[in-house]
C-alpha cells in the first residue's frame, strides 16, 4: 500500500512540476494584467477540483443515505475536507489576484459571495461531524451535504446568470470567449495535476477515516465487554441472605 501511495505521489509531483513550468514560463504573459494573471493557473484549477470533490461528497452522501454504508460515510468526509482545502485556496488566491488588478481585495458580487457561502456550508458540515455526538451524526451530515451541494451549480453559473465584477468564463463560455492555446494547455495541465494530487489526498484521508472507524468500533466492543464483565461480577455476588443478585 505504501509503495502504491509513494508511486502515485511521485507521478503527482512530476505532473505538478510540469504544470508549474507551463504556467510560469511557457504560457505567454497576458497583455493588460502582466505576470499576476498567472495566478489563474492555480486559482481556476483549484476551483474546478473543489467542485469535483464536493460532487464526490454529494454522491457518497446519497449512497450513505440509501445504504448506511460506513465506507460511503468515510469517503464523503474525505472528499468534503479536500474540497474545503481547495476552496480555501480559491478564496485566498482570488483576492491576491484582485488587489493588483481591481485595486480591491474583495467585492460582494454573485461569484465571490456564492463561493464564500459554499465554503461556509462545507466548513459547517465538517464542524457538525467533528463536534456533534451520537449515532445520528453521519446521517445529519449526509442530509446537509445533499442540500449543500445545491450551491455548487449556483457558483458555477453565477458569472453566466449575473453581471459580476469577476471575469467572464474563458473556457466553455460561449461565443467571444477563449484564451491562447498555450494558456489553455497550461490551465488544463494544472487542472489534471491538481486532480491527481487531490485524488491521492482523498485516498489517504479515506484510509485514515476507515482506521478511525475501526478504532471506534473496537472501543465500543471493549466498553460492551467491560459492561458485560461488570454484570457478570455483580451476578456472582451472593447476599448474606443466601440470594444471588442478577
Amino acid at each position, binding site marked *: 500500500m505504501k509503495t502504491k501511495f509513494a508511486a502515485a505521489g511521485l507521478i503527482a509531483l512530476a505532473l505538478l512540476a510540469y504544470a508549474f513550468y507551463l504556467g510560469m514560463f511557457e504560457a505567454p504573459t497576458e497583455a493588460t494584467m502582466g*505576470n*499576476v494573471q*498567472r*495566478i489563474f493557473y*492555480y*486559482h481556476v484549477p*483549484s476551483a474546478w477540483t473543489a467542485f469535483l470533490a464536493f460532487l464526490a461528497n454529494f454522491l457518497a452522501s446519497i449512497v450513505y443515505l440509501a445504504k448506511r454504508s460506513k465506507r460511503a460515510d468515510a469517503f464523503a468526509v474525505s472528499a468534503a*475536507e*479536500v474540497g474545503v*482545502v481547495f476552496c*480555501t*485556496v480559491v478564496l*485566498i*488566491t482570488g483576492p*491576491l*489576484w484582485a*488587489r*493588483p488588478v481591481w485595486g480591491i481585495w474583495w467585492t460582494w458580487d454573485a461569484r465571490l459571495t456564492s463561493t464564500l457561502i459554499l465554503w461556509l456550508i462545507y466548513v459547517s458540515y465538517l464542524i457538525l461531524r467533528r463536534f456533534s455526538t451520537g449515532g445520528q451524526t453521519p446521517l445529519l451530515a449526509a442530509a446537509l451535504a445533499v442540500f449543500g451541494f445545491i450551491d455548487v451549480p449556483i457558483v458555477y453559473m453565477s458569472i453566466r446568470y449575473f453581471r459580476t465584477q469577476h471575469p467572464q468564463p474563458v473556457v466553455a463560455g460561449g461565443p467571444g470567449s477563449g484564451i491562447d492555446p498555450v494558456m489553455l494547455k497550461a490551465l488544463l495541465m494544472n487542472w489534471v495535476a491538481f486532480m491527481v*494530487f487531490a485524488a491521492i*489526498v482523498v485516498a*489517504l*484521508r479515506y484510509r*485514515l477515516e476507515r*482506521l*478511525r472507524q475501526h*478504532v471506534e468500533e*473496537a*472501543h465500543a466492543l*471493549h466498553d460492551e465487554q467491560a459492561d458485560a464483565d461488570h454484570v457478570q461480577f455483580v451476578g456472582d455476588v451472593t447476599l448474606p441472605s443466601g440470594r444471588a443478585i442478577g
Partner: protein
Amino acid sequence: MKFLYAAYAVTWIIHLSYLGWMSRGYRRVRQEMRELEERK
C-alpha cells in the same frame, strides 16, 4: 510579481499544512490501536 509569488506560496502552505494535520491524525490513530492491543 509579489502577488503571484504570494498566491503560489499560500497554495502550497495550505496543502502542506493539511497533509501535516493528516499525518498527526495517522499517528494518533496508530497510538490508539496500540493501546487497544495492549488492553486485550
